């Protein structure tokens, strides 16, 4: 059988805590909490950023051979009142995945530091929901560079995310975007 869960890593360098998540909630604070606290404020000009996110896929149980893990999105969602559309908002993914955890940086309630700036192994980011589609999935490496995994525990390398807001954004709670994962079992 195969059962997986998403985990987010938070906390200080050298002693991060991994927590099971059901939503990737972007905030101006290093927390996985799924609530409306610490929203990313709309800037007067330029950009504000959510604090970077570090996630990975964790196996609760996998008796089969797991391989070929990829991610893609289904585009930026339109409004679903009272939730607003993603106008002026972007979701970025780090181009690199890594076994390394770097503590996120930023100013609480104001803005995060850009992912490619604070993370030692992320050199660039890509607009995830525009670039990665069902026809162009992003490959995610497995821990230790393995081609396949079985058993329990962390299966994938760390995946890095960041939310960016500009001054064309509306005010309110964004309608949820979808991130689709794909894997093979043998």
């Amino acid at each position, binding site marked *: *059988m*195969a059962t*997986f*869960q*998403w985990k987010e890593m938070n906390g200080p360098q050298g002693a991060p805590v991994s927590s099971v*998540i*059901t*939503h*990737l909630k972007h905030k101006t604070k290093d927390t996985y909490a799924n609530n409306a606290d610490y929203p990313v404020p709309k800037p007067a000009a330029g950009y504000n950023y959510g604090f970077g996110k570090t996630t990975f896929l964790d196996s609760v149980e996998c*008796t*089969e*051979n797991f*391989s*070929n893990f*990829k*991610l893609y999105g289904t585009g930026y969602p339109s409004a679903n009142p009272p939730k607003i559309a993603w106008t002026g908002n972007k979701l970025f993914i780090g181009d690199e995945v890594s076994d390394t955890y770097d503590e996120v940086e930023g100013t609480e309630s104001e803005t995060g530091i850009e992912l490619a700036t604070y993370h030692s192994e992320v050199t660039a980011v890509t607009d995830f929901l525009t670039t990665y589609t069902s*026809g162009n*999935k992003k*490959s995610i490496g497995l821990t230790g560079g*393995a*081609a*396949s995994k079985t058993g329990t525990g962390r299966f994938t390398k760390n995946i890095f995310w960041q939310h960016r807001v500009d001054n064309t954004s509306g005010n309110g709670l964004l309608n*949820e975007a*979808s*991130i*689709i*994962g*794909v*894997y*093979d*079992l*043998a």
Partner: protein
Amino acid sequence: MIHDYDTHYWLGKTAQGWVSMADWKSSDQIFQDVELLRLEPLYDTNYQTIFEVARPAGYTLFFRGRVFFDTYPNNIIGVAYLVGAEAGSWTPWEAGGFPMDPDAWLIWGLFADPQDYLPVQDGFRAILGPDGSIDFYNSDNWSYKLSSEGGKDLYKFVRIA
């Protein structure tokens, strides 16, 4: 291993009798003894499609289940199945693996990115998509015959002499 989300399952005929996904993984050694491999629907409500291939001597059979899930909040949204054959035997990328174990290989067919995967050289890949669509990739010496079996579409993949 049949999962709650599965729509189809494989079963294989060996010299010792039939084995199936209910009791075995395709990464188990017994899968290498399968001489006739079938993919069949689990329920009448699933796409009524059957894949079948008899393994010619010197070929390796492959099977993969591909799971699509919405990561938040972690719902399975679809599953695809791949059945394939390729001439020869395949050693995993990790040195010291079992000979004749193809399951460490990322096999081409599920992605249009063949340079990273075991390509179709002398064989085929047949994919039943989550929406019932069928994709077939083959070398010139493989083809398929479509017929009906009990009201189901039966795709028999065959090597052309």
